[in-house]
């Protein structure tokens, strides 16, 4: 509107009218870019300007030497404000090398985690040692409460899962064994595989998902809210107060849950055999007692507490690694579950070799 008042020279005039705000940032930027140098910006028609509008003017002046005319005192003021705040800012932290660097970081991190886990294992042993010397330092209530959370409350889901797995093993086994006319060996299959392998293993996976993750999340949250630091300053050892009760609970509950899982899986398999293969329950139970050696039960029940220890150790360790922000709780909880299931399966393989070699086949 006021462009007629400008001195007639060779400048290309940009004369916005109305409001020059963030809502018009896109079109303003395009219009400015379309104009060739030299530019003259006439602000006399602008009724309302915000910092984004001012910034667009400022960067044009800064980068292309545009002249500004017709700015009122408020506009001048705003232009000065954004000019003062003109500092280049990095949006993202500098990238860290390429794929090789990433692999290197990953290897170093993995190594540190394993060393850290070993160190944590040592700290737990020390805490156990201290408690054995002074048993009164064991937090009985905490342990009993963990029994409830880790053990009793897991009965339903582990029972249901095992029952269904028993049915699946029976059904799949029967289909294959029928081809040889040997359906009756379905009973051997159900009995031996659930007692020796699947009972403890499936229970361990369920406990890792249920309790290992909970341990990591609980301790991790306590780290963020500085509860763990508060404990330390009061003189309470976090390992004794938080880790030891969880480990005791997991170690004692795992064999019981694994036994429960074996029973439910055999029950499910028995039901399948009764309904589908017409093997009466009494015969099924008799056969189970004949074909499943006592050593199978021992194999299952010896593995279970070790798995429990590993799960609780990994869960608590990852929880203790949480620092800084809430996202870490999620990351470390995931890490706890992955790490404990991985370690459980590795140990299961070791156990399989070990028990075979001592003749418990």
């Amino acid at each position, binding site marked *: 509107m006021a462009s007629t008042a400008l001195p007639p020279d060779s400048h290309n005039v940009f004369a916005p009218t109305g409001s020059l705000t*963030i809502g018009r940032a896109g079109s303003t930027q395009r219009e400015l870019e379309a104009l060739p140098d030299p530019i003259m910006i006439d602000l006399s028609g602008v009724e309302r300007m915000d910092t984004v509008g001012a910034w667009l003017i400022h960067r044009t002046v800064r980068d292309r030497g545009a002249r500004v005319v017709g700015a009122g005192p408020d506009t001048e003021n705003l232009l000065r404000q954004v000019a003062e705040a003109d500092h280049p800012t990095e949006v993202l932290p500098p990238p860290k090398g390429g794929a090789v660097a990433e692999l290197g970081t990953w290897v170093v991190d993995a190594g540190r985690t394993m060393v850290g886990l070993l160190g944590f294992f040592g700290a737990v042993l020390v805490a156990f040692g201290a408690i054995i010397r002074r048993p009164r330092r064991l937090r009985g209530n905490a342990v009993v409460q963990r029994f409830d959370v880790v053990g009793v409350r897991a009965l339903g889901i582990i029972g249901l899962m095992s029952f269904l797995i028993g049915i699946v093993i029976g059904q799949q086994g029967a289909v294959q064994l029928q081809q040889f006319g040997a359906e009756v060996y379905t009973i051997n299959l159900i009995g031996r595989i659930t007692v020796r392998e699947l009972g403890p293993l499936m229970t361990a996976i369920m406990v890792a998902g249920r309790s290992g993750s909970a341990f990591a999340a609980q301790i991790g949250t306590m780290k963020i809210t500085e509860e763990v630091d508060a404990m330390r300053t009061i003189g309470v050892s976090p390992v004794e107060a938080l880790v030891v009760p969880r480990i005791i609970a997991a170690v004692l509950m795992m064999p019981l849950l694994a036994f429960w899982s074996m029973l439910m899986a055999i029950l499910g398999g028995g039901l399948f055999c009764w309904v589908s293969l017409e093997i009466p329950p009494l015969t099924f139970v008799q056969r189970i007692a004949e074909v499943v050696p006592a050593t199978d039960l021992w194999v299952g029940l010896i593995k279970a507490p070790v798995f429990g220890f590993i799960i609780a150790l990994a869960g608590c360790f990852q929880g203790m690694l949480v620092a800084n922000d809430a996202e870490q709780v999620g990351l470390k909880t995931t890490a706890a579950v992955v790490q404990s299931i991985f370690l459980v399966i590795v140990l299961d393989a070791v156990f399989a070799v070990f028990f075979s070699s001592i003749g418990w086949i």
Partner: protein
Amino acid sequence: MSIVLPEGETPIISVRGLENRFGDQIVHQDLDLDVRRGEILGVVGGSGTGKSVLMRSIIGLQTPTAGDIQVLGENMVGRTEDEAKNIRRRWGILFQNGALFSTLTVAENVEVPIREYFPFIKPPLLHEIAGYKIAMSGLPENAGSKYPAELSGGMRKRAGLARALALDPELLFLDEPTAGLDPIGAQAFDQLTLNLRERLDLTVFLITHDLDTLYAICDRVAVLADRKVIAVDTIDRLLQLDHPWIQEYFNGPRGRAAAAA
């Protein structure tokens, strides 16, 4: 000591007959409050008098049991999401602990509202806008690429302020901005609030416990007690009221020290 503005003056925030109850517990009852355009209004009250609940009601995070709330001339109670969106881009909110998105850097945090409402603004302009907002909030240049976890408490508040200012709001809500800051940091933050108000024509709704902040920057102070706003006025005129809580608050040893400063 009228809580409600006289006829003819249009408030930027207007609350009428607000009632908030949680089960049996009544936090607000028949609460009225007006905020003038361009003022810095301090909101004070003892712990549990519902300062934060009041703010959450005004910004729509808490649906009141009863009452009318108008912000920037728009009704806030029972409005649709679309209408609310238009109001939301006209205000900025600084939560008590910054409430920064922890997976994003400071600069990305500032860019979130801009990307949401103005998706056509692309880098590098987007990054430049984030950059000057960060500088305006008094953060050092290298703060933009840091994650919230790497910042100190004071810097986190400034980063939260930068995000609150991202869309050039007309209205700024600050929930205890100086809590947890050292006196120098708190004073700097007060000064920053004042400067921004001057520069950007802001109206500021400020919840605080900090008597120094009240004396230093607030135009008027609203006192919450007995489930409502019992008075809104300058501190000098509040002191002439003989409400026991007001007297104790401003005439206690801390209140007198702040007044003398």
